[in-house]
């Protein structure tokens, strides 16, 4: 036995150290801080549609920023998922949920939320080859897929854009099943990028997408076109905004909004909305357009009659989230932090001291706050050293 002394000692040494390290790791592991919704006003049941991801940063906790998820009012940490499920995680709540629920349908599709529209019955996807394989040269060939959630039946159509173009960027997909409207920025028949609206009948498919409206031409400017962030892709109107860059200095520029528009997916017309001041915001919900006007304490909300553009004041909604009043726009969309869904205005931002994420939900007709609150740690002592940064936010239109 003595001839194995070195072998057994070394193996014992490895076993002891590895076990010791394992025990220490488990013992030293501090559980992720429990999160809670602190209600300042109203009822937390209204936060159901809010889905968000945030990084939890503890100034005493080193370099570890765990990802926390708020879904249907419940908080979970990404690390609670199994190793393989963590690998498939997508940082967009909509795409992540679609992958979890319709894994087979989502296979091979570009994980961009702007390319999907979800209804209670269907999931619709529009994409081109270059969306899923970046080195493929751009073509005017598009793939439209539709999934029937109940029967799990998937239909795929290969369609061509009417005009040949070397650049196609799908900006938004809207559906009033079986009618599909997609906004695509292309360079077809023009030296500059123009945005077109195309329609497609999912029940009566054709092999060519016919242009319904040339939005750029209708709007009459080549200013950059922003599409309103609408979480419900079954809305009638697509809100639009044009903006141009003003060069302020050698190193900086500012963006100036040059016009507000709405595209009516039913009549296929572009509605120009005039008389808007600085600080105006344009929303849509179901078949209605709303205009928000920034005030000192919140936002004055008007219902817009699209025929004569007459604004009817609904009332003023007091906002307890200071930064929600400022419009957030990126990736070609605007209204990131405030939107109207099913008669409620949802806003998110941070508390005045910037330490905690704040949420507010108001009834647009009564202007009552249905919910006002913050996301905080259950252990109040840790609130000073810990902050939660929202990285992704969306409203789930299928949850009321």
């Amino acid at each position: 036995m003595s001839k194995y002394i070195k072998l057994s000692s070394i193996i014992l040494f490895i076993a002891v150290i590895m076990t010791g390290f394992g025990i220490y790791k488990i013992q030293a592991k501090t559980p992720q801080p429990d999160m809670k919704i602190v209600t300042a006003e109203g009822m937390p049941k209204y936060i159901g549609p809010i889905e968000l991801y945030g990084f939890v940063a503890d100034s005493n906790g080193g370099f570890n920023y765990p990802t926390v998820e708020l879904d249907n009012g419940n908080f979970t940490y990404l690390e609670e998922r199994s190793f393989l499920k963590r690998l498939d995680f997508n940082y967009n709540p909509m795409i992540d949920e679609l992958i979890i629920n319709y894994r087979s349908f989502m296979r091979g599709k570009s994980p961009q939320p702007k390319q999907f529209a979800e209804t209670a019955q269907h999931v619709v996807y529009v994409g081109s080859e270059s969306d899923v394989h970046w080195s493929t040269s751009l073509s005017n060939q598009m793939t439209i897929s539709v999934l029937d959630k109940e029967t799990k039946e998937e239909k795929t159509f290969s369609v061509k854009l009417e005009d040949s173009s070397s650049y196609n960027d799908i900006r938004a997909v809207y559906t009033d099943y079986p009618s599909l409207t997609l906004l695509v920025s292309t360079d077809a028949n023009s030296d500059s990028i123009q945005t077109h609206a195309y329609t497609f009948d999912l029940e009566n498919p054709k092999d060519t997408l016919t242009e319904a409206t040339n939005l750029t031409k209708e709007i009459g400017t080549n200013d950059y076109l922003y599409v309103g962030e609408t979480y419900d892709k079954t809305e009638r109107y697509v809100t639009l905004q044009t903006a141009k860059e003003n060069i302020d200095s050698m190193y900086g520029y500012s963006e100036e909004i040059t016009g507000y528009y709405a595209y009516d997916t039913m009549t296929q017309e572009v509605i120009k909305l005039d008389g808007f001041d600085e600080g105006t915001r344009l929303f849509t919900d179901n078949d209605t357009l709303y205009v928000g006007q920034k005030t000192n304490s919140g936002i004055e909300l008007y219902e817009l009659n699209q025929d004569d553009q007459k604004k009817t004041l609904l009332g003023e909604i007091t906002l307890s989230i200071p930064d929600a009043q400022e419009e957030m726009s990126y990736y070609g969309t605007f209204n990131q932090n405030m939107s109207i869904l099913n008669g409620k205005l949802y806003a998110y931002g941070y508390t005045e001291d910037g330490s905690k994420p704040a949420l507010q939900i108001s009834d647009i007709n009564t202007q009552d706050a249905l919910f006002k609150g913050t996301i905080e740690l259950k252990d109040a002592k840790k609130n000073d050293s810990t902050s939660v940064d929202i990285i992704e936010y969306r409203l789930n239109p299928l949850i009321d």
Partner: protein
Amino acid sequence: MKKSLNALLKLTSFELDRLSKFLFTLMGLTLVINLAGYIYTPMRHMNKINQFMTENSATAEEALQTFGRFSFYNALNSFWIVGPIVIGITGMLFYSVFIWYREWFGKNTFAYRLLMLPVSRMTLFFSKFIVIFIGIFTLISIQMVSLFVGYPIVSAIISDTYASGLSLMEAIHAHPLFLFLFPLQPSYFMVIITAGAVMLLVLFTIILIERSFSVRGIFIGIGYAALSLAIVLFPLFLPNLLKNNYLFYSSELLIIELILMTVVGICSLFVSRYLINNKITV
């Protein structure tokens, strides 16, 4: 079965004896250089602070603003810790080649004596394979011990005012190198170990190919290495071949990768068995 296990144990013990001097040197080197780092790195930081405060009549607050807080991570991220790890990896990689060639390049061709032993020749193969893994895990273990020794040393040198309060585990988690070396995430660690084992099996096979076919074997060995690499890296080319980056989910790509690595590992074992039994003659 018992006989072959006994033979494996004997050969492994024998191989470990031969490795021990090299292994103990690497262990010692790791401990000594690490220890120097645990003392030198925080002391240098404190010296800088003291010098700054003396020269500028600065307060501790101002010194903190200039130099920041010192954490154990700063010590880990220095040459003193990373260096011995690199030496250890390189050393074990070198020894993986040396473990075979030493048998042929000694004064006496010891390989012939080993191959004449009345045991399966694969026992010899496995004993060398196991010993390399024992060596790797010993170095990982000694690195763990070193960290547990180093943490209180660094904490003692850095005064509380300038310490970041980062715990030992937080510092280890923050360092990307330890994510590969330590079982911080067991599933991830298993993937790394599998990849390491397959790499070692392929390396052993290449050595046996070279030993079997001489100069021609070098080219065959390079071809085998290229083929193994191509098979293992095949999932990375799948998106381009299928012209779709999203056809497979990351978890599926990992599973495919693990299956392919296992296939390459098993193939290497079979090729090695064939070569060691039929091509390497005494």
